[in-house]
């Protein structure tokens, strides 16, 4: 009998489904291999049915997207109850993702920005009709802050190879350590085609912004003075951005030995500059104009601080 699988997304862009579709011919095998008992697009009315299921009736649930509304929170909890395994699929579910940058602001600020002072309301009445909108949390949360998560599939989106390997591992029956991130536990440089051009002595007197430079298509991007987070970022993507001649921005998150991705990346980048006097140092960091956006682009909600301080 085929394992029962469920797919659900919280706040995400759809890229993770595209990533599954990018298995191309492989998709049909997947559809064949599992028995899909819950399809995310059907969530509202089927939620009731899921509630009807016995706890643990679903063998494995793949959840992508971060948690940002009360509704998503309920669904995440429901799925946790009903599933033997829950897999956080993609950067948003694992780390909070780019929408997690919303943790630099609040729901109120967002609404004011988009609609001005009188924007949409949680509850609206018009000649007797009542329409409601779900609550937006002030913060975006990675899935494992809402529920315990068994496995993580990293990437924004996960690369086809990572998806294929992950599915194979999970359906194989021989399960890895709970909490495992289903990707190589090494940094991206390991699979970078340019790693041989990586100099022995990393030392910079300033960093460049990517639009200020025409990057050599063969040489280590960090060595060219553009902050590339490859050394801090988990491998498995196949160095896709590097082959696009752009620096790694860290969507695969940290390795297993790093707890706060951005902190570690910052710590490492800051270590390799030349200066020793404070003003010199500040000058060298001039081009890192947005530290949070640079080091926490995908992982702010999963960082130690989680969000900008709420006054």
């Amino acid at each position, binding site marked *: 009998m085929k394992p029962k699988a469920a797919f659900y997304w919280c706040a995400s862009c759809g890229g993770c489904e595209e990533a599954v579709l990018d298995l191309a011919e492989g998709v049909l095998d997947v559809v064949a291999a599992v028995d899909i008992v819950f399809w995310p697009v059907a969530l509202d009315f089927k939620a009731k049915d899921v509630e009807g299921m016995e706890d643990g009736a679903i063998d494995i649930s793949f959840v992508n997207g971060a948690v940002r509304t009360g509704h998503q929170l309920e669904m995440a909890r429901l799925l946790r109850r009903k599933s033997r395994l829950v897999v956080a699929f993609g950067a948003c579910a694992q780390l909070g993702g780019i929408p997690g940058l919303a943790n630099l602001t609040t729901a109120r600020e967002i609404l004011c920005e988009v609609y001005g002072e009188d924007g949409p309301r949680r509850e609206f009445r018009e000649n007797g009709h009542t329409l409601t909108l779900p609550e937006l949390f002030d913060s975006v949360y990675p899935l494992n802050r809402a529920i315990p998560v068994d496995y993580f599939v990293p990437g924004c989106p996960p690369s086809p190879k990572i998806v294929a390997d992950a599915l194979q591992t999970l359906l194989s029956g021989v399960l890895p350590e709970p909490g495992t991130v289903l990707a190589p536990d090494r940094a991206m440089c390991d699979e970078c085609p340019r790693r041989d051009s990586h100099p022995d*002595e990393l030392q910079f007197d300033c960093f460049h912004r990517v639009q200020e430079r025409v990057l050599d298509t063969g040489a280590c991007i960090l060595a060219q003075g553009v902050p590339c987070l490859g*050394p801090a970022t988990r491998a498995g993507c196949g160095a896709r951005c590097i082959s696009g001649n752009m620096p790694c921005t860290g969507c695969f998150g940290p390795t297993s*030995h790093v707890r706060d991705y951005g902190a570690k990346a910052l*710590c490492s980048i800051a270590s390799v500059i030349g200066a020793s006097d404070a003003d010199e140092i500040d000058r060298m960091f001039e081009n890192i104009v947005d530290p949070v956006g640079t080091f926490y682009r995908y992982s702010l909600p999963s960082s130690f601080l989680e969000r900008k301080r709420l006054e």
Partner: protein
Amino acid sequence: MPERIVRIGVYTCHCGSNIAATVDVKAVAEFAATLPNVVLSRDYKYMCSDPGQDLIRQDIRSHALNRIVVASCSPHLHEHTFRTALKVGGLNPFYFHMVNIREQASWVHENRVQATRKAKDLVRAAVRRVAFHEPLKRGRVAIHPDVLVLGGGIAGIHAALTLANAGKHVYLVEKEPTIGGHMAKFDKTFPTLDCAACILTPKMSAVRSHPNITLWTYSEVVKVDGYVGNYKVKVLRHPRYIDEDLCAGCLDCLEACVYKQAKVPDAFNLGLSKRRPIYIPFPQAVPQVPVIDPETCIQFKSGKCKTTCVDACGERHAINLHAEPQAHEIEVGTVILATGFQTFDAARVPYYGYGRYGNVYTALEVERLVNASGPTAGQVVMRDGRTPQTVGIVHCVGSRDENTHRWCSRVCCMYSLKLAHLIKEHTGAEVFDFYIDIRTPGKGFEEFYQKLLNERVHFVRGRVAEVTDWVLDPSEEGRLVIRVEDTLAGFVRRIPVDMVVLATGLEPRADAPEIRRLFNISCAGEGFFLERHPKLAPVNTFTDGVFLAGCCQSPKDIPDTVAQAGAAAAEALALIDAGYIETEPNTAHVEESLCCGCKTCMSMCPYHAVSFLPEIYKSRVNEVLCKGCGTCVAACPSGAMRQNLFEDDEIFAEIEGILTNA
């Protein structure tokens, strides 16, 4: 592999009342007992005492403890003690963590409640941390048997001879053209009044002739690499333009110098006499080899000298005016720093008139005046040629003074008494000693003071206000007046004298900071080199294999200096004869499965301890070269670099422990 089930024993020390007075030790112990993994928590009067250590040893066996936390004093004091206790108790010594609730709680806080709370937090942090500790092995580093002794004063000389006599090879490096240091300038030594030269010069020539001593005078250490047991030291030998091996010490060249009169102020005599451009510091100098001073030698300045010195030397050809500085790389296992002191610059206290009035002298100058082999052949004649009828000796110049140095220089009282005696002896002058307190803590010191009292030296208790030539009374005409409040008589006195002697204090040498950096040791606040522990390790530094002797550590007299030099030599010998030293295992290491070969670590390490292995594309740490700072660990972007005893897990656990109920 760390043991599965963690069983922690926590020991909280009273340190007599040192801790217990401000920290509720019982409460801390009871609190510790409630923490996870803690199976036993005790408090005890003195954990470092033998019965205290025995507690640990017993409990390890009887309660199957596999982690130990001791809350007592600074790990710098007793970490080693307790680790050893674990070892004896049959447990890996690194299953241990120490909590500092004395220096960092009981001694610095007054509020008992808060001090106790803090102690509990720190204990909680340690308990969490120690659970992550892993069994570690100390590395062994072989000790190179050769020793570097820096400084050729009495301290360096004594240390060098002690080591050389024990059969060790010593490099004795001295900045000046001769060894002997300050002591060589003295005439007699207190309190025994035996002649300094008679006790020093034999040791000096012993150094010169000792087969196990390589003596490099007129030389400086310019670079130090390596680590305990294996220091690589670069010594720069300044050219004295006269080859030490070829020179027979006949000194004909001095006579032959085109300068018939000596014109250059003689540094050894503190400018009280003149020398030629080619000179020997003093007759008993070791080595007995002249030096040419290029600053003043015509040949060097104009190239137009007849170089009669060279002719005088004849076929010995010892003089080489083209000599270059020579650099020597030597390998030594241990280092003894005996770089000495400098005397306080009396010009810094203008109200005592030094430099303004010719007849105001420093004590060291007077040492030369009373010295038979000095500039005046022992005649005490002043700069104006007269012999003083009355002499005033001012104590504590640049000592015990808020405006200059706060410390007592320890030797001034005694050498002032000595000089008073010698001046009286040489001139029969009337001598006044102006003192704040007379300090005579030493064998035969107080007796010497009594002797001086009997010799009718006048002791005036009071800090001298000024030395002036402003005459208020005909009796003061042409003399120097010392204004002082006589605190015994209780009124201000004006005492006219012919000669004033300033008993200048001892201070760290100007180049002490340089030396400190070269050898990677610390200075105490006043600038003297810092010993590892003022009582338990007075000649050790925080850098293994580097020891201190003499006044570079603090002012002291000759007996103490010699004793300390012997102690330093003994410490070095202990290391050398053991043949190896055990190193802290707190080195970095690469978890290869995680390393992606980004090489960030390599640019972090000042010791080149990290190398890159292209064949496996990973970094690797040479644990002997690694000094365990952990900078590469913090910098490693993928967490592949780790540090024993300072693992991320351990530090995070400590942080959480501190903040758990914050």
